[in-house]
């Protein structure tokens, strides 16, 4: 009897807590975004400022750009923040998003082992560096996950005149995972990898890796924000989602983005007012 009563008590307590989870009436929006914005700590910095001003809680799901757009397409997010302009424009053109607004940019860096087997260090030319890696079959880790960084990598191979589908061999390791996993893999096998600067700066398991190529304008990485179209998905919280977008591109939101630094380095450069970004 004794144990039965305990069991009953536990049952009630658990059911109670379960219903408490179900009835969470907080005001919130869901944002699907990329791993770089979360892993870099940017959202941890700016979201509390937005919440303090509006009372809206922002729940961020971090995925690759392709997956994040897909989450928006299915209506599982209210706002998407990603970095692959052509895919973003397609998303809007297909009627899934209301409008794309530029928010900020950061840049990619080519990471590689300090021993530098492809001898690309100190060049500012990312295309020449990729050609050297391919011609020497130096180990290279690719995200391979349809993320914005993966898309950027593929574009760079194309710019270098290399058909990567043809050229890839055992040296080209397509891992199909996020930025952190790609850096961990590169660190473990001393390979080259294309990374966004923010994730790299926040990454701790560097081993022998260091920045090899940076500063090429072709490495700039523009982020855009889009409200998921409530005409497609009526449950989308258009008002609160738009409030978040308006704040991000307002002077106040832009300042908050620019204020975020690691070791004194700005990670994301606000450029909402730059035409054509």
């Amino acid at each position, binding site marked *: 009897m*004794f*144990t039965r009563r*305990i069991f009953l008590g*536990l*049952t009630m307590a*658990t*059911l109670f*807590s*379960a219903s408490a*989870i*179900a009835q*969470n009436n907080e005001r919130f929006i*869901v944002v699907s975004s990329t*791993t770089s914005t*979360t*892993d870099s700590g940017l*959202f*941890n910095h700016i979201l509390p400022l937005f919440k303090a001003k509006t009372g809206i809680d922002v*729940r*961020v*799901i*971090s995925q690759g750009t392709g997956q994040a757009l897909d989450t928006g397409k*299915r*209506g*599982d997010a209210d706002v998407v923040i990603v970095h692959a302009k052509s895919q973003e424009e397609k998303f809007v053109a297909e009627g899934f998003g209301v409008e794309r607004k530029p928010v900020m940019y950061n840049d990619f860096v080519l990471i590689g082992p300090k021993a530098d087997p492809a001898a690309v260090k100190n060049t500012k030319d990312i295309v020449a560096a990729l050609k050297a890696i391919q011609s020497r079959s130096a180990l290279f880790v690719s995200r391979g996950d349809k993320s914005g960084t993966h898309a950027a990598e593929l574009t760079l191979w194309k710019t270098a005149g290399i058909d990567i589908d043809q050229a890839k061999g055992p040296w080209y390791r397509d891992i199909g995972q*996020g*930025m*952190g*996993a790609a*850096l*961990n893999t590169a*660190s473990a096998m001393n390979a080259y990898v294309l990374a966004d600067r923010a994730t790299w700066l*926040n*990454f*701790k*398991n*560097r081993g022998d890796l260091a920045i090899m190529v940076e500063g090429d304008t072709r490495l700039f990485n523009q982020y855009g924000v889009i409200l998921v179209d409530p005409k497609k*998905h009526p*449950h989308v919280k258009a008002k609160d989602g738009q409030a978040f977008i308006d704040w991000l591109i307002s002077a106040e939101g832009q300042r908050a983005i620019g204020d975020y630094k690691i070791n004194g380095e700005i990670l994301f450069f606000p450029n909402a007012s730059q035409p054509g970004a």
Partner: protein
Amino acid sequence: MDLLAAFSEAFGLITRLDPGFVAIVGLSLRVSLTAVLLAALIGLPLGAWLALARFPGRSLLVVAINALMGLPPVVAGLIVFLVLSRSGPLGSLGLLFTPSAMIIAQTLLVLPIVISLTRATVEELWSEYRDHLTALGLTGFRAVPTLLWDGRFALTTGLLAGFGRASAEVGAVLMVGGNIAHYTRTMTTTIALETSKGDLALALGLSLILMTLTLMINGAAYAASRIGARFAGS
């Protein structure tokens, strides 16, 4: 990698009762325990029924449920994801990326274990005490409460196995919970996140804490069943 510093950082999270960390542990426990409870409420009667019922295709069902004990968490996650997505059949409930979705996914993972182990336990007890129970007038399904009560210690072990599966998995909660900070971030998704940030030491520290918690829960359940056994005089 400075392991010692990482461990002291990880254990500092406990000793300081860091609120963010406590919330993560609390959510992990709430989700997994609720899932085990739901699985018990569904699985115990269902398993007992399956032990006593005789119908065509029963063996097939038994094999299928046994096989489902090995259901990969990502597959359970994917199924729940597709069902709960706004574009899925239950999308209007708005449950995707909430703790409720995580509970549903983990319940799916635990349920086959509870059903299978209950069926095996009850089947054995029934073959042993059939005559005795029949003499007491407890025939067929009327014997179920008694059989479940008599098998409670074996069943507790089954529920602990279920809890172990629920609290250990990362694939399903990551997919249907979304690993949202302060909302759906659990112990296992935090470990995965810290690993992806390259903070392997902190991830390892958190792993040790997770294993310690599991050890404590199993210890508590073992002690409770020992005390219970003494009370029951068996």
